[in-house]
């Protein structure tokens, strides 16, 4: 059966057992990559000609901003998979992705503000990119708030998935608003997504940080998903067995 892996993927139990093996490797990879990237970027990469040392916040700001956006798609796509194929696990991933995405968006906004003070002389500008990130934060918060409002978990799952999907329509529009809205105010240096505009000596640590953040994101997302799986499936046999096998203290709490 070529599709067996796909159906297995929908099983929380299978997912939990499989990811037990992945978790240490993902943790190791993210610690190594972020460690190497931050030491290289903060300590050894050359100073920027115009911004001096203040540019170094890019090594946190840009990866966080990348994942804040990518995280929204991960949330929306897993929500869509849940709605279409009625997969329990996919809803769990969606719900786990919302707070992580919100925190990353906040980090991107916060580091951006800290970076803005020395470079632009102000913490906050109503620039299109900054405003669109703020809207992204509100989209995440909307999903989280909607999830909290429902008493039944299944209904909350479906409602959040629908809201996340509707919000997806907004993202390209918000992203493109850089070109459409307040074009005169747009600062050219806010993001260095083009590889050619940044020197390799600065770009390699940034690349390592981005990959490291991706690993860290995967690690956090899977950890949250595993936790939520245990919370939701605590009545099932396999979770009960797992709890008895692993530690008695957790088991007594669950029981």
């Amino acid at each position, binding site marked *: 059966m070529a599709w067996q892996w796909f159906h297995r993927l929908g099983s929380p139990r299978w997912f939990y057992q499989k990811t037990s093996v992945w978790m240490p490797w993902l943790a190791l990879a993210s610690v190594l990559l972020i460690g190497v990237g931050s030491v290289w970027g903060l300590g050894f990469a050359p100073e920027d000609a115009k911004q001096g040392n203040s540019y170094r916040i890019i090594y946190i700001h840009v990866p966080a901003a990348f994942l804040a956006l990518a995280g929204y798609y991960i949330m929306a796509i897993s929500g869509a998979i849940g709605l279409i194929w009625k997969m329990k696990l996919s809803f769990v991933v969606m719900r786990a992705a919302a707070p992580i995405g919100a925190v990353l968006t906040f980090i991107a906004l916060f580091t951006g503000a800290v970076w803005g003070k020395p470079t632009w002389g102000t913490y906050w500008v109503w620039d299109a990119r900054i405003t669109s990130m703020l809207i992204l934060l509100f989209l995440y918060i*909307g999903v989280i*708030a909607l999830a909290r409002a*429902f008493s039944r978990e299944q*209904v909350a799952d*479906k409602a959040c998935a629908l*809201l996340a*999907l509707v919000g997806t329509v907004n993202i390209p529009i*918000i992203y493109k*608003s850089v070109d459409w*809205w307040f074009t005169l105010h747009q600062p050219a240096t806010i993001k260095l997504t083009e590889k050619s505009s940044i020197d390799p000596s600065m770009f390699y640590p940034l690349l390592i940080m981005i990959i490291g953040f991706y690993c860290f994101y995967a690690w956090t997302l899977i950890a949250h998903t595993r936790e939520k799986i245990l919370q939701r499936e605590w009545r099932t046999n396999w979770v009960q067995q797992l709890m008895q096998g692993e530690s008695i203290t957790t088991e007594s709490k669950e029981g």
Partner: protein
Amino acid sequence: MSSPETTAQSFAPAARTVPGFAPLFRSELLLALRRRADIANPLLFFVTVLALLPIGVGPEPELLARLAPGMIWVVALLATLLSQESLFRADFEDGSLEQLALTPQPLYFAVLAKVSVHWLVTGLPLALLSPLLGMMLNLPDDGYLSLFLSLLLGTASLSLIGAVGAALTVALRRAGLLLALIVMPLYVPVLIFGTGAVQAAVDGYAYGPQLAILAALLAAGTALAPLAAAGAIRISLDN
């Protein structure tokens, strides 16, 4: 409060024989026109908040002219949002929403009928009233037509988008603030192009492109938003 029940009764048999949109549209419109206060309230809100603006920032004509396009748009957005919470509420509470979901016609048309009526009684009057408020806020003469046209197109999109939020939160108690939190970020594109059109007109540029994009948003919204709202209604009925 006998009116929702009578509509449900008179509508349910008809729904099996005729396409869902027209009779529902007619009965919704009739209901809306009989509840005059519900029509007047968003308009009064609109006028009152805009009257507070000169008190808040000062009555200098140049300053008001500068703020007018954005303020009128933002207040129109808030007025639409406030009136939206009740869009499905009464029908949900007396069970006619469930009846609608059970009819053989796609729920899409029922939602579209409700949203159309909502726009006719809130968005359209707001757009019609906007030149008067533009005049009071000293909006430059070039801005009137673009303000009216952008509000005409934009408020329809706002009604459609808000319907999705209203449908998602209909089963929840005290949904008002949550609805605002959910729907506001989705309003942003409409706001960008709506104020953009007025600003361009005031500055003496062509505002056709912004209106075209507003029209495109409305077209996409008409096709997609009632679908999403219908899905949300079915989810809410599960709760």
